């Protein structure tokens, strides 16, 4: 039986959260993808590079999650659960590479919610945007994510 999702979440802003980049986490992430690029994995190569340290792969910000929550509260507010979710789209606009030890502020909001019928039945699309800023309050990245809820 189809479920209803709460379209009232459009415009919702999530509590901002802070992330500090860990050296080992960058390497663990690159290795999990099987990407053995020395600019991610080799500290000596990183030190000799234009960035002065290893950098994170382009999709590393997927690890930026609020430590306190598992996202369950938002799913309940939306009126769904994990088993109905699919990842629809993901986009990273990256203004510069990021390095171990850097601390960032992440501010997310729901920018759109809409429904559509697809091959596998009715679906809702939840579009979230996250602004990632550094300690100088410079924008480092903008993340756009579309989550699909199977209704």
């Amino acid at each position, binding site marked *: 039986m189809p479920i209803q999702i709460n379209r009232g979440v459009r415009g919702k802003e999530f509590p901002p959260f802070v992330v500090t980049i860990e050296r080992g986490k960058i390497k*663990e992430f690159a290795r*999990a993808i099987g990407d053995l690029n020395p*600019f991610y994995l080799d500290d000596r190569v990183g030190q000799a590079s234009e960035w002065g340290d290893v950098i994170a792969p382009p*999709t590393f910000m*997927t690890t930026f999650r609020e430590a306190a929550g598992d996202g369950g509260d938002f799913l309940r507010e939306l009126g769904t659960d*994990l088993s109905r979710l699919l990842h629809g*789209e*993901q*986009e990273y606009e*990256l203004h510069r590479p990021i390095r171990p030890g850097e601390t960032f502020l992440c501010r997310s909001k729901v920018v759109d919610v809409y429904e559509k019928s697809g091959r596998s039945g009715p679906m809702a699309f939840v579009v979230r945007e996250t602004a990632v800023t550094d300690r100088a309050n410079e924008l480092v990245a903008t993340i756009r994510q579309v989550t699909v809820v199977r209704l």
Partner: protein
Amino acid sequence: MKYAKVYFDDVKVGDELPPLVKGPIQQIQLTRYAGAAGDFNPIHQDDEFARAAGMGGVFAHGMLSMGFVAQAVTDWAGAGAVRKIGVRFVGLVRLKDTVTCRGRVLGKSSKDDGHLVDLEVWAENQRGEKVVTGKATVSMPLRD
């Protein structure tokens, strides 16, 4: 040669990136990626859960495939070159699937902040079915 330096001057519209072949996908890689990414959705780990959810069994995180596509881009353009990458997840990647990531140059432009190359990127499975489609923009150096 892997990680060869590519210069903006030498790139032409229509050029193709060297294909990057990943897989066959094994459960252990999905478990490892879950830990590295912090995404513990059981739909990627627990076959019973995935079947009960109507997905016919476990499938790979979309973000793992996006990571593969990003690797194809950085293997060619260099680590740190990606200014933008955006993808749509158009098909599921299953256990034992092989994922081939490809890309093609759509355009070039020079701006104050650098020399940019726009790419069409995608990934396909062993049957040639697209599982990821998208675009990327990379910054590239000029030859001295």
